[in-house]
């Protein structure tokens, strides 16, 4: 791979940040924001708290595009806002820029867009209001009444004409490409906690094979809706607050701690700009970090309550991904100065992840600082690896560990931000369905 890829823009949008600067400040201050879900009454669900974003999409799109925000689902809004933050941070001038903006005018045909995304649940309230018009005598939904060949105002006509378009999973990428005028390769990759990482890897490949010079990449997702909360509860990952009504929110999610009672959801848009290095240099961009290695693998034994088999505490998929990434970066385990693992906060998943770090990094795994985001902004699913990559890029740029880094052996922790030489950072994650990914970022 002789085309080197660097990170030149960050768009971390989550419960504790809406810019690279605010993200860094929050991480260094040790802030976290997990609050009761505000968009609907979630008290009927086992985990009604989450990391939530307050930004409004109308404030982040060109005036001419405001009308189109009506057909954006929450996931799309998060991607659109985060992509704008990332493009601005990278100093890009796109068709989504304001007239007064200055910057590097992108070449549309040479600019791609890869976004990790999840299934977007149809608005439950809208669906509920529509389906009650199509019930039989017993109050059961009936497809004959739903069909509108012979009826006018009832049934499916209660859904807006563009209903489907709002919920297609590729809509985050489509709106972002339209707003910014990106005509290069564009993809939407479904991979839950690994989605953004797989997207960043694909963007890197697209640039390496010379199909683009730069890409908007990362992920965005919000499952803070009834169906999303139900599904993730059924996945067996969420903390159950019904069994623990008096618990202090700070004690719920404790990554790599056997007393942790489970994960908490978050919503986020974790977008970045990745760029071919000489292209970045030619336009005097200021790269945060170089993508020096990546690897992705599949576990045959993910922790999922649908297969009749006992998930093991060890699984070689994540460690293989890390080993491949290190080997591509031409590094030894000891060269890694910090790791951003998922640390989902579910004891058996954390044990698997710790074991994967041990088997890929050897004894170095015990002492290398680990920096975890889930307890600050929730598990932001398809956006999460985008947030992790942004955090890693900032750490390399600032040469500093933000507050509350830990290590597996518990021999050392870092309650306050700590200045330390950082040359290479490992980011790794595994998804609900067992997709594993690892990324090595290196100091420029």
């Amino acid at each position: 791979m002789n085309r080197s890829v660097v990170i030149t823009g960050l768009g971390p949008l989550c419960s504790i940040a809406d810019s690279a600067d605010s993200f860094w400040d929050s991480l260094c201050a040790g802030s976290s924001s997990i609050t009761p879900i505000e968009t609907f009454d979630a008290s009927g669900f086992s985990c009604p708290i989450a990391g939530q974003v307050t930004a409004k999409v109308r404030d982040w799109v060109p005036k001419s595009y405001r009308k189109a925000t009506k057909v954006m689902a929450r996931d799309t809004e998060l991607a659109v806002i985060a992509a704008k933050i990332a493009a601005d941070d990278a100093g890009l001038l796109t068709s989504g820029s304001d007239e007064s903006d200055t910057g590097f005018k992108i070449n549309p045909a040479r600019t791609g867009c890869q976004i990790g995304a999840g299934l977007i649940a149809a608005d439950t309230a809208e669906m509920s209001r529509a389906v009650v018009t199509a019930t039989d005598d017993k109050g059961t939904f009936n497809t004959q009444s739903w069909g509108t060949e012979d009826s006018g105002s009832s049934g499916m006509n209660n859904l807006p004409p563009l209903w489907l378009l709002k919920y297609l999973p590729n809509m985050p990428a489509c709106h972002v490409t339209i707003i910014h005028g990106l005509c290069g390769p564009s993809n939407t990759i479904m991979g839950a906690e690994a989605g953004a990482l797989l997207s960043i890897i694909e963007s890197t490949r697209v640039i390496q094979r010379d199909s683009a010079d730069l890409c908007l990449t990362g992920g965005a997702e919000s499952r803070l809706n009834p169906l999303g909360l139900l599904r993730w509860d059924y996945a067996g990952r969420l903390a159950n607050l019904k069994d623990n009504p008096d618990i202090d929110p700070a004690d719920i999610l404790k990554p790599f701690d056997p007393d942790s009672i489970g994960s908490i959801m978050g919503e986020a848009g974790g977008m970045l700009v990745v760029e071919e290095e000489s292209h970045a240099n030619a336009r005097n961009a200021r790269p945060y970090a170089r993508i020096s290695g990546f690897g992705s693998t599949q576990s045959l034994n993910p922790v999922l309550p649908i297969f009749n088999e006992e998930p093991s505490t060890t699984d070689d998929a994540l460690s293989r991904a890390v080993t491949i990434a290190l080997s591509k970066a031409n590094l030894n385990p000891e060269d890694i100065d910090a790791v951003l693992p998922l640390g989902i906060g579910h004891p058996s998943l954390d044990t698997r992840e710790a074991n994967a770090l041990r088997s890929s990094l050897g004894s170095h795994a015990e002492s290398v600082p680990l920096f975890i985001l889930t307890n600050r902004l929730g598990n932001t699913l398809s956006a999460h690896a985008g947030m992790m990559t942004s955090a890693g890029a900032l750490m390399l740029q600032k040469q500093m560990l933000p507050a509350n880094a830990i290590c597996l052996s518990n021999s050392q922790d870092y309650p306050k931000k700590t200045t330390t030489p950082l040359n290479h950072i490992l980011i790794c994650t595994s998804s609900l369905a067992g997709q594993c990914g690892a990324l090595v970022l290196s100091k420029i």
Partner: protein
Amino acid sequence: MKATTKTAMTANKSQLPDLQRVVITGAGWVTPLGADLDTVWNRLIKGESAVAPITHFDASTFATNFAAEVKDFDLGDFFDDGGLHDTAGLSTRYALAACHNAFKQAGIDSNSTDPARIGVYLGAGEGVLDYEPYMAANVAAWDSDSRSFDPKTWAKVAYQGMTPAPELEQEPQLTALHLAKRFNAQGPNLNCMTACAASTQAIGEATELIRQGDADIMIAGGCHSMIHTLGITGFIRLTAMSTRRDDPATASRPFDVSRNGFVMGEGAGIVILESLASAKARGATILAEVAGFGSTADAYRITDIHPDGQGGAGAMQMALDQAGIDPEQLDDNGKPLIQWVNAHGTSTQENDKTESNAVRSVFKDNAMDVPFSSVKSMLGHLIQAAGAVELITCLKAIETGILPPTANLTEVDPNCGLDHIPGEARDCNPTGGVSATLSNSFGFGGQNDCICLQRYTG
């Protein structure tokens, strides 16, 4: 504005190292016309339509009450799964069956192949909703007195009726997990959702992944079924589907002046992609070579394709550039170097017209001499699975030298007006057969993908 790749033209593929050349060594599909490779192909050559009234659910009052459904499908007819896939959704089952046949054809022995070097890249669609309990929760949660939605009631009823396995199996990446488990594929595993372009994009990106050295073998393709209440509802509301209720079998009529929308299909298509080095080392039979892949975005509108079809043209041009094929050049028989463009050809007014414009802008003076037909006229539109199934028809065209027709095309729309192979298949063997094809797939929101397939000649 044409999205051309800067990659140097590789006029002669055989100059590339075997590790950077990607070939297809197996293919399998589950389609509305059957699941056997040759049976389906023969039915396509005869112009048979699979479109009929919907039986999956009661659609009798729907403006579109017909589709191309997969019939008499049972995963147990393909292999004994030992209960491993008991919870798998319908489209995942289609993918498992298609992959089983593809694997068999490729002759991959899982004992002598490194599972870490086998990956999966699918454009699998979301699973079908678990309607009964889902709708029960939706109905219960509407308070008609206050005319408002009560999430607490929704949660209560949903927790009672909806169960973990059917809910989690709807997550689209679960299909790739089932395939990985079944076929011991422990390498890179991805699922993309770019609407109707998804499985073409999956196969294209999987090809690039092999070229870049990250796997030796990729299971690639897609699966989807949207023949269910809300799937059909969504497209009816968009007025994208044909409403030819009086004659469903002729409803899908790409390029015809009287076309009035697409017809929904369902199924799966899987190909086994492999580096030429790996295929040679195994002594595998090579079916064709993936010579080029192009992927672009329209960046135009959510609801419409760019009227010039520039995004689609860009994807075709990119695929041709990578294959080192000049669309304006002719071969020794005086034929263009591409002998078939497998159209996205959905049978919507907008797509067929703009796609024809795109083909015209790429092939210029040769455009009338490039056969350009749509098998969606017979299979319907398999949405995320369409690209993979249609790429397999390209494989068969190269293998047999025969091009499938556009069925139901009785009066060519002058706005399309190319060589759409109306009604009857064409035998190209008298003029040297079929050595190279393009397969187009364009998705909602302006996602365009194209794959150039070439006969493997060493």
